[in-house]
């Protein structure tokens, strides 16, 4: 069955799109989270927090452009359906992204008396973006329908995703800073982890209840076996994170990267579960990836390019993170 390009191409593109969304929620997740944590930090700490994400945020955000681009090019039919249904939250997110992106620059370049205002804009933009993305996630799970219970659920996921982002943001700060700020970030992370657990739990409970199809997939034998490792592994990671955060920081700043790595693993598992549940639908319960896909010739053209370019992109992304490895304070003193 997979010999036919009309079958495997949509699958490959769904996988690529999933990959870029995952990379996006981890990477932009941490820098959005840093923005959401802004009010908890002192002015000097704010500067260090921005320094910890400054060289990366633009490239991080590009994964969103790639994800929506792939949706647009590979599944044009679904692209219209999804984005018109999410018209308002998308607009809120875009305005949030605008405020946040420019605040990065303005807070360092405009006259000093405006700096507070831009710090507020940075926080507000990060918050708007996180909340609206969480809202869209919830509405998507609920099948993109604007009914009261669905909106209520989406409001809940909005809060949870925001907490989740600030959690991963806190783990990034643990890795990129030291001293008082690192200790503060450890506290933030300890608070955030419970929001994350609640969020993943709520989504996992709601998803099968909304869709009989997903219920079927989760709770029928032997399919359930496929899924079982996900909650188990997630539970173990949460426990590990919890005990780790209580003991950190270690002497010589050892393993300061570990919480971020574990958080990433947790996201990946949660995301994998979602992807497994929704497959093969791109618009939940309405449109499968096979029905929504562009013509195979066009997908082929993009695939060639992607296969060449994607490894290159990954390589220079790694390069950038290598060039800017180490604690963020160093940025200002060379």
């Amino acid at each position: 069955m997979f010999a036919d390009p009309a079958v495997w191409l949509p699958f490959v593109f769904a996988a690529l799109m999933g990959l870029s969304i995952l990379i996006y929620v981890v990477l932009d997740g941490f820098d959005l989270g840093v923005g959401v944590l802004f009010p908890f930090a002192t002015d000097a700490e704010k500067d260090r927090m921005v320094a910890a994400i400054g060289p990366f945020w633009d490239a991080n955000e590009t994964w969103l452009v790639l994800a929506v681009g792939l949706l647009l090019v590979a599944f044009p039919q679904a692209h219209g359906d999804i984005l018109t249904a999410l018209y308002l939250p998308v607009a809120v997110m875009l305005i949030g992204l605008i405020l946040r992106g420019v605040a990065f620059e303005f807070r360092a370049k405009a006259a000093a008396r405006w700096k507070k205002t831009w710090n507020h804009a940075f926080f507000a933009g990060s918050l708007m973006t996180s909340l609206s993305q969480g809202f869209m996630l919830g509405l998507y799970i609920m099948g993109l329908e604007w009914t009261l219970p669905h909106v209520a659920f989406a409001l809940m996921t909005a809060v949870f995703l925001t907490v989740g982002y600030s959690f991963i943001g806190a783990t990034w700060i643990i890795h990129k800073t030291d001293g008082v700020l690192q200790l503060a970030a450890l506290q933030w992370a300890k608070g955030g982890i419970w929001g994350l657990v609640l969020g993943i739990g709520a989504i996992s409970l709601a998803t099968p209840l909304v869709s009989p199809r997903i219920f079927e997939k989760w709770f029928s034998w032997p399919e359930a076996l496929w899924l079982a490792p996900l909650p188990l592994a997630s539970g173990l990671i949460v426990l590990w994170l919890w005990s780790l955060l209580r003991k950190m920081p270690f002497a010589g700043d050892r393993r300061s990267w570990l919480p971020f790595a574990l958080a990433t693993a947790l996201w990946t598992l949660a995301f994998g579960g979602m992807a497994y549940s929704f497959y093969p639908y791109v618009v939940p319960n309405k449109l499968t990836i096979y029905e929504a896909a562009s013509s195979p010739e066009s997908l082929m053209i993009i695939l060639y390019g992607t296969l060449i370019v994607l490894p290159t992109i990954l390589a220079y992304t790694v390069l950038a993170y290598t060039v800017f490895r180490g604690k963020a304070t160093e940025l200002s003193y060379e």
Partner: protein
Amino acid sequence: MDTLILSRIQFGANISFHILFPTITIALGWVLFYFKVAFTWTKDDRWMEAYRFWVKVFALSFAMGVVSGITMSFQFGTNWPGFMETVGNIAGPLLAYEVLTAFFLEAVFLGIMLFGAGRVPNWAHTGATFLVAFGTTMSAFWIIVLNSWMHTPQGFEMRDGVAHATDWWAIVFNPSMPYRLTHMILASFLTVSFLIAGISAYRWIIGGQTRGVRVALKSAVFGAALLIPVQIFVGDMHGLNTLEHQPQKVAAMEANWETAGNVPLVLFAIPDEETRSNRVEIAIPNGASLILRHKADGVVPGLNDFVTPEGDVLHPPVAPVFYGFRVMVGIGMLMLLVSWTVAFTMLRRKPGSKERRGVEGLPRWMLYGLVAMSFSGWVATLAGWYVTEIGRQPWLVDGVLTTRMAVADVPAPMVLSTLIGYLAVYGLLIVAYLGAIFYLARKASKGGTGPVVPGARLEGMGVAAE
């Protein structure tokens, strides 16, 4: 107002805002690369001084370009789903290549260009600057390919109302692409030249008369003086190309109603679509025929040819295209006048000496003139795009898809609310952007470092060099 008109206003507002910043970053990237290379070559610190100031403007403009660009990529889905559903097989790969080959390149190396100077060797930093400049140019290339294809589509066939690509070479190298791309890239270089000249003149006036300012001002004025004739020539070629493929657009640009020979060049008029004639008209006899056909009696298409017997109007609205064209060409002529006057003044020798007058020899009023022209490139670019895009109406993809067919089925009040949101944000940001540029100029002229912020971003060679 209905969803269609609101969506059009919203799209127009968003793209107009977006294009302002790529117009700056496309050329400024190369200018920075030039400063950097000149520094590496001559070891003369004035180049680095210029680099350090303009890289700040670049970073600011880039951020504005990125965030407004992200808005653009969502617009297709939220407001124009019919576009991708009909021509997605062609537009999709072009947009995908833009993201893959351009956006990641510039976004990743921007970090190294802005913050990496102290972390990587000098050649690598220069290389990162090159890659960022190259990336912005690639962005422009892919998006202009798509836009040009929408004006002069070819290399595809329609199956069940959906366009399928048959010849990618023909799609990419569609007839208007080379002209539009060249004209746009030159527009970017001119915009940046006048921006650098204007801001440097401002710094010179308020007392920041350093060697870095002088070299930036000189480079910018001579650059503009060299490029503007080329731009006028390319613009003319572009117009001839349009005449061939979209005669109705040229008819609207010239406000010419009847197809005829010996058509005059209308310098100014008030076109009136009710009476289908021009009210006031100042014109040069045979001018349009001469420019477009290179013969006094050359036949120039008229708007009335594009009205069906049933009365359906198939040509674009005349007034905005007509005025937009005059604004663009008018600014082009002004740029010629200003850049040549200033360049010749700088090249003149001091009385009784072999030395050229240079920047010191410029009279005050010329410096003020340059300041006034700082953002003239923006005006010309916007005017030009309005001619191009409004001139394509009622089509979205010429002869394939009308704008009306592509619009989303979103309630009008919803579009209105987002439109108001965007306009408010854009209004604030433009003010903040202009304010920040002039603030940076004042700060640099005072020689002060301004607020030193621990952990703040460092451009160029880092804090020590500030």
